[in-house]
């Protein structure tokens, strides 16, 4: 009876330190948690909050030689892991606790077959060899849903897709038959439809093997769908722990609440999203108060001087906040002080299409042999037509590899299209070249996905923003341009003093603001945003979305918003176009497409998005397999091999535009 009650894993006051001396960072500072057998425990938080470090400290895999556990105990059953010798830890790792990492592309050894990599674990922990091991490998591959396991076991990682690789990682993790599986952002690098497959697989395996899962994620939707219990981490500490239902119905800590409020959503379309001002404090200091106090809307002066203790807040719930302390006299929460304002009403300028793309094609030739003759083409974009009216936003949605970004670059002539026409303000861009094109470039701008790599690290940000103006001849002299740069910085929420700094001195959100300022500097009419928030945390994403929306309202900008995040689409876009393998399969007003999707692919995509409403009763449409290669697309409708509603005629020809007026759908279901 005693062993039944004992938790599987118990962390007591674990602290981790990286580095030595004054600059030492404490990414984990006194974390205590317990995980029961067979439960899914979600550790949630923004980047840099110490989630991964907590996981690594359990397995004693902290980066060496800088990282070490400075205090606390890690109990696995009745074994104390921090006291074990390194050789004994090997008996634990992979056998009793396994881990899967975020990036499946780099977690597998590229020169060994996947079968060998699984067999290695079997040999290490179960002394299985030869036939027995080979059979077990096939069993495991079957268990993680890899079709044609016998053939796949002999393949190398580069022959598999991202989703397959993550399944292999799970198979390796399962090979040791662990009691606990630590999954560190297991689906962040994957597309939503693949993410749904992997999450479903994890749930199925958990039911079969009764192992516990520690799920580390930043996605509230995944937590809602998977977790039994949730812990929120902020700046190295747990700030709230609760059962899933309590957490989603009644989150206590102001930080948890802000996370919910900052999620973009169709219902928040007309208002600004809640944001958390400031940034996560650096963890090399001693804290004398609540770590969230500076950014907290519910705090008062007491919070800055007193470290909050861990207070129970009802059954199954505890939080680290003074507001939960029954012994304290608490002032009322002041009205919104963080300056969030609702958006000004949007003035739609004169109607007419700013951008009119017809039948855009971008094909990349594949060269082979000594003479590098063309043996085939990658049909990255294969006949895309879209229109963007002035002052409105079109969202282009699709999985990675479907050609979204190439459409954007093809429109801007950063990649020259193979065929088709791009009419911008009644000028045919595909016909422009050299100086003529260079002069028009100020009208359309691009905001890149990764704010870290889109600025030259060796230029000051003021110079970066000014460069485009100088190239386009905006402003008569340097002084005028400088004044405009200062003004732009104010406009995007930075201060003019920031211009004299280098990109690395800014956080991700600030950098994306600078990128926006850079695009605005040349007074564009159209801005193509290529996943501008996918590298950012939720609260920072809200800031950027607010900024983009405000700029559209005041400047009348048009956006082509390339994304895979459907909640952002519902918040920001007017119309949405869904892309699959180089072609648009459905297009229409955002409300109609998201609420009443027509194309089977759109339906599958929408159903695969994790929803924070638990038990919303929706059925996940599971898509078989992966995106086919764009160099040899399937005959007929590109989607038919994965389509649950495929008909014989789908394999014959590519469907024309069907569907209601203003809402074209390329599917034979509507012919």
């Amino acid at each position: 009876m005693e062993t039944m009650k004992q938790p599987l894993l118990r962390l007591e006051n674990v602290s981790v330190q990286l580095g030595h001396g004054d600059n030492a960072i404490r990414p984990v500072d006194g974390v205590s948690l317990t995980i029961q057998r067979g439960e899914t425990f979600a550790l949630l938080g923004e980047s840099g909050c110490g989630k991964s470090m907590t996981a690594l400290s359990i397995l004693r895999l902290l980066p060496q030689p800088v990282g070490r556990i400075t205090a606390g105990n890690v109990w696995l059953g009745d074994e104390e892991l921090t006291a074990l010798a390194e050789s004994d830890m090997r008996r634990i790792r992979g056998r009793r606790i396994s881990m899967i990492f975020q990036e499946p592309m780099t977690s597998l050894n590229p020169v060994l077959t996947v079968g060998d990599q699984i067999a290695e674990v079997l040999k290490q922990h179960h002394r299985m060899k030869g036939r027995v091991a080979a059979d077990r490998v096939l069993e495991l591959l079957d268990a993680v849903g890899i079709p044609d396991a016998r053939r796949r076991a002999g393949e190398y990682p580069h022959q598999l897709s991202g989703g397959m690789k993550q399944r292999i990682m799970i198979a390796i993790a399962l090979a040791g038959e662990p009691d606990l599986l630590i999954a560190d952002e297991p689906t962040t690098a994957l597309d939503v439809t693949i993410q749904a497959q992997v999450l479903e697989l994890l749930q199925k395996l958990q039911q079969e093997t009764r192992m516990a899962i520690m799920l580390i994620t930043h996605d509230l939707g995944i937590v809602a769908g998977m977790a039994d219990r949730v812990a929120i981490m902020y700046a190295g500490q747990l700030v709230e722990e609760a059962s899933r239902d309590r957490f989603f119905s009644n989150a206590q800590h102001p930080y948890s609440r802000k996370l919910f409020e900052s999620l973009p959503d169709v219902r928040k379309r007309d208002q600004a999203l809640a944001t958390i001002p400031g940034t996560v404090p650096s963890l090399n200091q001693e804290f004398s108060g609540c770590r969230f106090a500076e950014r907290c809307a519910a705090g008062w002066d007491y919070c800055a001087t007193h470290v909050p203790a861990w207070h129970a807040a009802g059954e199954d719930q505890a939080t680290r906040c003074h507001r939960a302390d029954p012994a304290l006299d608490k002032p009322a929460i002041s009205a919104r002080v963080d300056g969030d304002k609702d958006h000004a009403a949007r003035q739609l300028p004169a109607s007419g299409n700013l951008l009119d793309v017809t039948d855009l094609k971008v094909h990349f030739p594949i060269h082979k042999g000594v003479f590098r003759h063309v043996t085939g083409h990658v049909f990255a974009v294969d006949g895309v037509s879209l229109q963007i009216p002035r002052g409105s936003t079109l969202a282009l949605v699709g999985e990675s590899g479907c050609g979204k970004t190439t459409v954007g670059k093809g429109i801007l002539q950063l990649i020259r299209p193979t065929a088709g026409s791009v009419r911008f303000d009644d000028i045919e861009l595909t016909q422009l070249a050299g100086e003529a094109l260079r002069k028009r470039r100020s009208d359309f701008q691009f905001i890149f996905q990764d704010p870290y790599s889109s600025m030259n690290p060796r230029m000051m940000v003021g110079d970066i923003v000014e460069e485009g103006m100088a190239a386009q001849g905006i402003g008569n002299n340097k002084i005028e341009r400088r004044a405009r740069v200062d003004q732009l910085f104010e406009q995007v929420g930075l201060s003019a003093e920031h211009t004299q700094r280098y990109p690395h001195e800014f956080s991700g959100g600030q950098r994306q603001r600078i990128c926006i300022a850079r695009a605005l500097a040349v007074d564009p009419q159209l801005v193509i945003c290529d996943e501008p928030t996918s590298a950012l945390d939720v609260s920072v994403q809200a800031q950027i979305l607010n900024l983009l929306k405000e700029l559209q309202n005041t400047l009348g900008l048009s956006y082509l918003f390339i994304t895979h995040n459907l909640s952002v689409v519902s918040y920001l876009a007017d119309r949405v176009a869904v892309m699959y393998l180089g072609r648009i399969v459905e297009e229409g007003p955002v409300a109609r497409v998201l609420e009443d999707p027509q194309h089977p692919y759109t339906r599958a995509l929408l159903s695969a998005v994790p929803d924070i409403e638990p038990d919303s009763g929706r059925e996940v449409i599971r898509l078989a397999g992966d995106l086919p290669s764009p160099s040899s697309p399937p005959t007929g409708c590109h989607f038919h091999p994965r389509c649950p509603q495929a008909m014989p005629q789908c394999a014959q020809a590519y469907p024309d535009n069907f569907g209601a007026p203003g809402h074209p759908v390329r599917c034979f279901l509507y012919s």
Partner: protein
Amino acid sequence: MIMPVILWTDALVFLLTLVVVVFVFYARSKPHIRAPWQRVFRGRVAAASAVVLLAFVLVGLLDSLHFRLPLEGNGHNGEIHYSVDVLSVFDVLVGPLRSQEEKTYSAPFATHLFAKESVEHADGSKTREFPPLAHAGRHLQKSSTVKHVDILQRSLASLFEALLTGALMLWLLSGVLARRAARSTRDMLREILLQRTVIPWRTILATLTLLLLLVFLSINLASVYHVLGTDKVGQDVYYLSLKSIRTGLLIGTLTTLVMLPFAIFMGIVAGYARGWIDDVVQYIYTTLNSIPHVLLIAASILMLQVYIANHPELFETTVERSDIRLLFLCIILGITSWTGLCRLLRGESLKLREAEYIQAAVSFGVAHTRIITRHILPNVMHIVLITVVLDFSGLVLAEAVLSYVGVGVDPTMNSWGNMINGARLEMAREPVVWWSLLSAFLFMFTLVLAANLFSDAVRDAFDPRTRER
């Protein structure tokens, strides 16, 4: 009046020095350039090797200030004739080292020649014995000190002087640093001695004191002995080794100066423009790489030799003649060695042209030349720097090998390669004359070791892959 002589290589050396000085001032205002250099000088090994390298550079620079002295008894109508000997400031500084020539070989610290000679005595008898040296050890005969005691006394005196100067420098440095940090000199002194400063001053001072010891030893001992012996024609080997520093440094740096424009321009343009330009550049360096370098160097040096021999009127002095040969050696070495860097830069630019900040610049309509100079060049400079520093020691060694083969610098020029070449015969003698080879080895070893240690530190500080830790 003396007549200054500016050799081709001198001009280039001072151009290079000017470039370095300008770069230092430019870098001071740019934190992203300054930061990695500060990281370099925070390492103790790097700081010590930098001091050693600077000492070599100082000797090289002093040896590059050339002039000719007027001849005694000038001709009529005010015309001044100049000596054909081209001297350098360094020659003047070391004074007796240059002029105290013996007849032939003598061992380090010897007072007599290495070979027996017939000596005619006052009474007309002849004996074969080791004749005393013309310059070394003369003072021993006047006073009656024993040689070993004399050497010991002079060494101790040098040690004392070096320590005294070192202490003086320590005191001055802590005074300056203390004033800058607005603290007391005592505090700063303790910080330096306990190595608590950001820049490892204690290491730097220790290295400097060691170098000073060598300087004082040279002053006290080399003026009265041949500390490293003399060579076949009686020249002081220590002097020859010091004079060779300039040759070694020139080969290492001027070659780089020649190759950099090729490598940077061709590499970046090939990677950025791609297409047929890339093909042409690739063909050029693949072809150049397939020709054996020694063959190419031998062919061009031999051709140059013929040219010089046929046009004696172009060169006023032998120094000018050997100088032009050195310059051509640098050029031809540069032409054969730019391919490696060019290939690296091509690869890096291929990668960078796809970087988002370059794409952003293109989408602003920024001109190509500007993209190359503002965006690509600054982001490949770390590769250039690492390659240059790493190549330096290789080139110094290459000079030795080429001179040994006979296609290196002019035989009349002082160089370690020539010293080693000469040692071929010396090593075959019985008893062996070992000091030329040893001195060339010692000097080359010190320079190359310091350069390698320094380049390691530079690579660690600039390479983004090693910076993570």
